Each structure stands twice: as C-alpha cells, then as structure tokens.
C-alpha cells in the first residue's frame, strides 16, 4: 500500500479539488445550514459519515456485483439507494442521541440524500479510476472533510456578517453565493499542487 499516494489523494480531495469550491457540488446544505458554526460542523460531520460509508459500500457493490454481472446501467439507482439508507442511519442516530442538533437541521438532514456532493463522490470514485478499496475510502472520507472545511469557513464568515450592513437585496443566499465565488477564486491558487 502506497501511503504517499493516499496522502496525495487525501489532500487533493479535501483542499485542492474541494468538492464545494472547485466542483460546485453540495451547494444546498452549503447555503442552507451555514448560518451557525456549530450547526455547520454538525452537518459537515453527518455528510462526512454518509460520504465515507456510501463510498465504501458503493465501491464494493460496483466492483463485486454490478460489474461482474454487467449491470452498470443500474449504477445510479443502486448508489442513490445506498446513500438513502446511510442517511436514514444517521437520522436515527441523531434523533436518539443529539435531539437538539436533529431539530436544528430540519429538512436539511433527509436532504443529504439528494446532496449531489455524495452521489458525486461515489461516481467520481469510478470516473477517477481509483483501483483499490483503500483509495476509494480515503477519497470519500476526505471529500467529506473538504465539505466540512468549506461549510465551517462559510459559517464563520456568515456569523461575522450578522453585524455587517449588507444591502437588503443581497442578504441571505445572494451574499452567501458571492462569498462562495470569492472563496472559489481563492482556492484556485491551489491548482497544480499534488499533480
């Protein structure tokens, strides 16, 4: 197992090709749950968990069921199904152990199912051609870390903006998207690092 290669995959997934700021996936929770830092961190943790679990399970399904039986056309259906099951798991866990966090997420928790960042990750594993389960696991976990990074940074900025005199027309999603644009320009600087 090449540890250096795994580290490169991890850094690339989390920072250099950040799922939100480079691929522009997962924008809806990025806009919806980035109002408070603690909530954003909770959402980031939930997405990271679902992402890692879904990445591992879909990798195994694709490699040992879909491809051997020539069922690749079922990829999307199967992947969404797995993701929905994982989200259900998180939802049950949160409702039992973190009821306050569960309430504050509201609709955004079941909506992780339709978070394109997660379907995107499971598909990217195959588009990028990761050959081993270890690579797929590291990639999907660190995509989640990158999502957490982006949403926590955004939540910090938005908490600071509570005190700012933002023009009325721009409050809410508009200013958030503009900040995301500036963040994306900033993360452009990492292009090329890690090959």
């Amino acid at each position, binding site marked *: 197992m090449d540890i250096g290669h795994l580290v490169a995959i991890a850094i690339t997934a989390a920072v250099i090709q950040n799922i939100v700021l480079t691929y522009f996936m997962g924008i809806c929770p990025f806009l919806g749950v980035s109002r408070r830092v603690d909530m954003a961190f909770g959402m980031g943790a939930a997405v990271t968990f679902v992402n890692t679990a879904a990445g591992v399970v879909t990798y195994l399904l694709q490699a040992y069921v879909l491809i051997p039986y020539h069922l690749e056309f079922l990829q999307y259906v199967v992947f969404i199904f797995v993701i929905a099951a994982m989200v259900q798991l998180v939802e049950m866990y949160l409702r039992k152990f973190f009821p306050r966090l569960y309430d504050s997420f509201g609709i955004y928790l079941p909506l992780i199912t339709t978070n394109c960042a997660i379907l995107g990750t499971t598909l990217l594993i195959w588009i990028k051609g990761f050959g081993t389960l270890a690579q797929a696991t590291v990639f999907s976990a660190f995509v989640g870390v990158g999502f957490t990074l982006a949403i926590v940074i955004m939540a910090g*900025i938005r908490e600071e903006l509570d005190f700012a005199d933002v023009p009325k027309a721009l409050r809410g999603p508009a200013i958030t998207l503009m900040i995301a644009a500036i963040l994306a320009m900033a993360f452009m600087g990492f292009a090329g*690092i890690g090959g």
Partner: protein
Amino acid sequence: MSDQPTTPAEALLAADAAAGPLLETTTGPHLWERAFTTRRMMIDVLIGLLPVTAAAVWFFRAAAVCQIVTCVVAALAAEYVFTFARRKPFSLLDGSGLITGLILAFSLPPGLPPYMSAIGAIVAVALGKMIFGGLGYNIFNPAMVGRAFLMACFTAEMTTWAAPVGATTGATPLAAGGASLLKLFEGNVAGSLGETSAAMIILGGLWLLLRKAGDWRLTAGMLIGVALVAPVDHWARESGHSLTVLQHLLSGAVLLGAFFIVTDPVSSPLTKPGRWIFGLGVGMLTVVIRIFGNNPEGVMFAVLVMNAMTPLLNRWTQPRPVGGHAKKE
C-alpha cells in the same frame, strides 16, 4: 508658626505640590492617542505608499502613471456609484477607496490594458467591499479580490510582466529562477508595478509599522512563515528553478504583501495570537503555492484563504478573562 518651609525636605514637598500630583489617576478607557482615526490611519498608509509609488514611476515611467490613475479613478467611481445607490454619505474622505485602488495598481503587471485595470478596480470595490456594507465590514482584502477576479478572467495578460525601462529581463524572477539580491533590493527587475523594489517597500512599510497603522505581528508572522517553508524549495525543485530563502523573501509580492496587504486592519484577525497565526499562514501558503502550484506567485491566494479563516481565528483565539470559564456552557 509660619508657613515658610524650614527644612530642605519640607521645601522639596512644597515644590512638588506646586508642580502637580506625582501620580494621576483617571477612570478608563485611557485614550492615549486621541487622533487615532480611520482617516489618520489611511493617511499614514498613503505616506507609507509614497516610496513605492516613486519606485514604480521611476522604473516603469508612463505605464506606472497610467495604471495608478486608472485604478484609483475606477475604484473611487465604483465607490461613488454604490454609496449613491444606497443613499449613504460618500465615503471618499476616509481614503480607503484610494488605498484599494493604489494597492491594486501596485499588484498588477505594468502594461496591463487600462480597461482590465479598471475592471479589477471596480470588482475590488464592489465585490470586495461594498456588497458587505462598506469599509469595516469586508471579509476579504478588496484589492486582492479584484486581482483574483482579473487573474481568473485574463490569466495570460496577468502573468506577462513587462521589464522596467532600461532593464533586459522579461520574466518575473520567480519564474526565471531568481535574480541577484542587489537587483531585487533596488528593484530593477521585472514584476508587478509596486513589488519590484524591496528597499522602497521596506522604507514605506517601516513608517507604517512605526505609526501603528499596521500591526507588526502580521508582517513578522508572514515573513517568518515564508522563511520557514522556503528551504523546502531547495530539494523540491531542480537547481535551475529553486530560490534561496532570501530570494523568496525579496522577490515577488512577499514584501508588498507583508507590509501593506496583510496589515489591512479590517480583514485580519483582532486578537494577537490570531494575528500571528494569520501572518504565519499567509507566509507558509505563499511559498507552498509558489513551489508546488501552477501559479508563479501565491501571495494573493494565501491572503484570500487566510481572510476566509479570519472569523474562525477571531472565534478560537479569544483571550479567556482571568478567573473566567473556559466555555460558556
């Protein structure tokens, strides 16, 4: 009994009483500097930028004048339009629009078509500052937002540096494998308008720090951050492309960034540990982007990334009051 002092000790006491109390006590807050206003700070920054302006005009002649005028006029015009649209008092007099325009002009390559400079200045003021509500609310350094926008739109023009009048080199020392230290120091190298002359930047920058218009922790943090990571270059790139630590410090936008860009009091953290982390982060990221990234220079990206982290740094580095609780709950 007479009032006249009879012993030398009594004479001294009487003299002291006449001169006023030894220990004056007043209630806080203690304003030691009554004139410490936004306007005074901005004027200090402008004075600090004078040597840089002089060096830019000396080395790049008409191109420099044209660029500076374009950027400043466009920045002020954008600020006027936005304040007019929001029916706010025109904020020209606080000087911040002027400084945004100047810093942007200094960070652009000389000979950039004026309409591009103008677009950069308008984006800097509009997207970088006014949409957040104006000066004091901006999360990012406005000039760097404008430059990043230009970098995304006009990459080719933004990475072509004209040589100074009378010099022979055309590539920036960062891409060409380094220039001699003396040349970097006096500024006779290709590069963005205001970043070439290390001597002039240090001269203006020291004035800025002495007048406390910028915090020295930010500057020191950034320079230390660069110096910490720069030795990596020695083994990361082959000898023709790697720079020494001093070359890393003196070439490109590091000095301009350390003295005039990271010291922006609005977009940098409020706490002292936060400022150290901010400065170190900018310096280290700059060199990492220079060595490993596609972009020849990393100061702008590093500043923007650390600007984004600033609200979190403010949050995490708040000093705990003596005897206070570690957490609110």
